[in-house]
């Protein structure tokens, strides 16, 4: 093939306008070593096979499947959920506590100021209080039995009439 024809084909090649046939011709031309004019030698490597050297290239390594790194959230979502539940429970528990805040005065009583000093005194106080309770209860039962008796009499009188 003439040098001029090759030059035209090269121009077309660099304009990406060559056909497959033309590229095959270029390849064939530049594969004939020793016949290439020095002005075209710089283009030769573009169309030459790598030959044996190409075959000697080391094989590509197998694709290594890297372990999928889960995000920190996905890895620990159970722990995060548990922590949140505990936090919410604690907050709710604190919220519904009948605390001293709701009843500030209740916590402020210092009963020791009013505490009786000896077991004997305590006995007397408790005795008086207990007797007061018992007497009132007794009084109440007496009045209710009196009321019941009165009601009974009333019913009897009404029945007679």
């Amino acid at each position, binding site marked *: 093939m003439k040098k001029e024809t090759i030059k035209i084909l090269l121009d077309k090649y660099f304009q990406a306008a060559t056909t497959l046939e033309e590229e095959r011709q270029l390849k064939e031309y530049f594969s004939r070593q020793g016949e290439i004019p020095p002005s075209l030698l710089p283009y030769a490597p573009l169309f030459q096979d790598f030959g044996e050297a190409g075959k000697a290239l080391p094989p590509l390594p197998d694709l290594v499947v890297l372990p999928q790194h889960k995000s920190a959230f996905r890895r620990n979502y159970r722990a995060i959920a548990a922590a949140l*539940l505990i936090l919410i429970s604690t907050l709710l*528990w604190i919220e519904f506590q009948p605390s001293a805040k709701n009843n500030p*005065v*209740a916590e402020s*009583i210092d009963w020791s100021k009013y*505490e009786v000093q000896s077991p004997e005194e305590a006995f007397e106080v408790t005795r008086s*209080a207990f*007797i007061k*309770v*018992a007497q009132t209860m007794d009084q109440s039962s007496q009045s209710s039995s009196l009321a019941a008796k009165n009601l009974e009499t009333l019913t009897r009188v009404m029945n007679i009439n």
Partner: protein
Amino acid sequence: MKTLLPLFFLGLFWQSPLSAQTSNINAIDAYFSQYVDDERFSVVYVSSRLFELMKSAAVPELRSKEDKEKNDLLRYFEGIQGLRVLRTDETPELFYAEAKKKIDTKLYETLMTVREKSGKNTEFLIKSNDKNNKVQELLLLSGSPEEFVLLSFVGNLDLEDISKFAKEISENK
């Protein structure tokens, strides 16, 4: 996640025994606290420690075999763990009416009400212990033209014991 749900609900509804105790104490303390430092009121408190001492043999004066009344009374005191008394003779009827309004009737049920011709009104309120059918607290509210008294017995009280004692008093009159 399924295993965590019961824990969540447990945490939500769990109330410690301490908190339950606090709520019980607060109902009556709230009223006492209002007048406990008021000069018009006299206040007496008998702690559980003193009740323990009374019941133990540590005080021989209270353990005299000859004094039957004391021995009987100590038997009745068995379930009592504390006593608080609040008393005044200034505007007693007003304090009685106010106390009746302020005592939380959701916590206490009325055991009996006594109204006398003299104008004296007495109300017994109890807080029951569901576990053993005993009374956790017995509250006596009494108001007359002469005095206002608020008595609070706490512990594990047996109402039968009190009414038995009331009968004994009546028989010994």
